[in-house]
């Protein structure tokens, strides 16, 4: 078999997703967290596209969705980074675990 099957792509997606989650939970730098989130997005997009090819090739719905994902990722990155800027401006550091003013 020389063709990658659906499963391959899905597992790749899972790997990326897992790594993204790991990064989300562990990165101290806020930008690092955002980058992990990008990973999550990408994993999801891979899954969509893979399904588009192997499960529902007629509608290309997966690809359309992947476009939307990318768009939303962009928007989110913009807003997220502006928040990070604001944080940096006010607290002179962007370690996420130092931003704990909502604690008791």
């Amino acid at each position, binding site marked *: 078999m*020389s*063709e*990658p099957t*659906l*499963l*391959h*792509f899905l*597992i*790749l997606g*899972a790997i*990326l*997703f*897992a*790594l993204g*989650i*790991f*990064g989300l*939970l*562990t*990165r*101290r*730098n806020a*930008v*690092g967290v955002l*980058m992990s989130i*990008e*990973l999550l997005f*990408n994993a999801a997009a*891979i899954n969509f*596209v*893979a399904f*588009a*090819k*192997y*499960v*529902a*090739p*007629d*509608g290309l719905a997966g*690809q359309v969705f*992947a*476009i939307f994902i*990318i*768009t939303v*990722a*962009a*928007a*989110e990155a*913009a*807003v997220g*980074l502006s*928040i*990070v*800027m*604001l944080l940096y*401006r006010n607290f*002179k550091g*962007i370690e*996420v*675990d130092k931003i704990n003013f909502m604690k008791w």
Partner: protein
Amino acid sequence: MNLLIFYTLAGIASISALMVVTLKNIFHSALFLVLTLFSVAGIYVLLGAEFLAAVQVLIYVGAITILMIFAIMLTHQLYSRNLRQVNEQVLPAAFIVLLFFVLSVFTLVKTAWPLSQNQMPANNIFELGRLLMSEYVIPFEVVSIVLLVALIGAIVISRRDKEETSK
């Protein structure tokens, strides 16, 4: 043949992703993110979504990653090189993530995917454009608004207040 390409690209993507989430130097992380995104674009090509690959490179790599690098540079601290980059909940996170991964793989393998024998439409771009304007026109518009809102929001959030300028 494709499989080989796939494994290469998947390996690069995975390893780069791993680098993204573990490297101490955030700048290096960003660079590895670029590499990951590039690999993902390659995966898209493999999946027959050429337009999407192009869009990925353009938007993700070209815009978002640049934005992140800008953010990194603007929020960079001198001492951050010695600072720990991963927080204290590494171990439980790693454990959980591993568990999750195992479960996911298990699920994926066990599931009987309803594979379709159909082929994708040949002209990718054309088809995508058509779909966007007909079936998915509403999401398309909404996403536009989202972008608009994000734009405004980003500006509003990071605007300096009058009191701050007087300091």
